[in-house]
């Protein structure tokens, strides 16, 4: 009985953190009557499962024409379909919408390929509407909540400041080196009169310096923002406190008196004397 309780408790605790959320899609059937399944549900979800398919459309056809409509989804990893509904309108009038709903056995999204409404024969469909209902775990909405969650590694690396930071090196800036070179050229001929060409060159030099200053400002702002973001993200961890409160001293001193260690004092004194003697030796050598 106790073993059973332990097993049940373990099972409960293993699943207590996980909770299923449910949702439905919008109309997946676009104008081309084909759609992908990758956009279903929130991003970074894990274990999303389709549990229902609902569709509606209006057949457009003449009564005497043969027409078959397939509403279906490819099955990933095979040539078949994971869902297929066939409506044979042959010999039947069109114009009246048809609505159908199917309950699916919680099939994983990884199996669901692209969907389509295919018409075989003479006729078409209009006002198509295909909706899927699904459920998913909420334990991976934050990637760092579980190492098994997609994106966990990237999130941890991001937290450990392994992000590449671009730093500004003024001596590696071509604008600055060009300015320095041109300035050196100008200083080589101080006696020559200032021509129009030199004025233009000076303006270009100043413009280049402005660009470099602007770039340096942007980079420093980015670094500042990065540091501020890290402070915010790390503070949540610093604020964590250990449970339990105060850890009290358990060692008790018997008698209440701690006598001096004479043996230790002697040893310390001898060491001090040796040290003093060693220090004094260097002065004696000079004498």
């Amino acid at each position, binding site marked *: 009985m106790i073993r059973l309780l332990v097993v049940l408790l373990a099972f409960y605790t293993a699943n207590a953190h996980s909770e299923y959320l449910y949702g439905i899609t919008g109309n997946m059937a676009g104008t081309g009557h084909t759609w992908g399944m990758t956009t279903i549900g929130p991003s970074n979800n894990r274990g999303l499962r389709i549990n229902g398919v609902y569709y*509606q459309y209006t*057949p457009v056809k003449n009564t005497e024409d043969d027409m078959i409509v397939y509403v279906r989804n490819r099955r990933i990893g095979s040539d078949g379909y994971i869902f297929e509904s066939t*409506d*044979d*309108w042959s010999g*039947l*009038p*069109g114009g*009246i*919408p*048809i*609505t*159908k*709903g199917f309950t699916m056995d919680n099939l994983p999204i990884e199996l669901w390929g692209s969907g389509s409404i295919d018409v075989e024969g003479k006729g078409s469909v209009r006002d198509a509407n295909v909706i899927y209902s699904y459920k998913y775990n909420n334990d991976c909405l934050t990637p760092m909540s579980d190492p098994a969650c997609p994106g966990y590694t990237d999130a941890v690396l991001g937290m450990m400041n392994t992000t590449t930071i671009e730093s500004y090196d003024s001596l590696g800036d071509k604008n600055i080196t060009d300015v320095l070179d041109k300035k050196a050229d100008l200083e080589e001929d101080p006696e020559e009169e200032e021509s129009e060409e030199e004025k233009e060159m000076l303006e270009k030099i100043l413009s280049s310096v402005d660009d470099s200053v602007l770039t340096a400002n942007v980079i420093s702002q980015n670094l500042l923002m990065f540091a501020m973001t890290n402070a915010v993200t790390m503070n949540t961890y610093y604020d964590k406190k250990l449970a339990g409160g105060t850890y009290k001293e358990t060692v008790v001193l018997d008698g209440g008196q701690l006598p001096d260690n004479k043996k230790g004092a002697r040893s310390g004194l001898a060491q001090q004397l040796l040290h003093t003697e060693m220090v004094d030796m260097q002065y004696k050598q000079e004498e």
Partner: protein
Amino acid sequence: MKELLIAGALLASCSPAYAAETPITGNVQTRCLIVTDTNGVYGNPLPSKLSTLSADGGVVPVVRYDVTLADAYLAKVTTPTQFSTAPALTDAVTWTGSTTVTNTTDVGMAGYEAAKVTYGSTTQYDLVVAGSTWFSSESAAVYGVNKSFPGGSYTALILAECIAK
């Protein structure tokens, strides 16, 4: 011998009568369900007219029939021919109405509209396929000859019936 007969008669008259009434119970589950999908609203495009058409500012009422047994029921939908509640009217009201299939859950129901039978203000459908069918009923009422309806609230009822065949 005589004594024996008398004794037998007494015994017969004294014996209890063994009889009981045993009930037989049964339950018939409905296999035809009628649900109001959309409540209708009368618009008032003219002083003398009330209409459920969306072009007239109204809302067309929709009734859904859910049938779980195929080819067992007839659906009869009757559009109104009188107001259930209205201010006092002193002139005649001319009623018009029609019922159509507006949605289905099975391809086999596509023929319902073509096979419907209409008499008076009633439209009858043969529900030969199991599933759900939506019927929309349009209704319009015109008062007198271009006479304005008196102010007030007007209510009329659509009668939807499911009749076993």
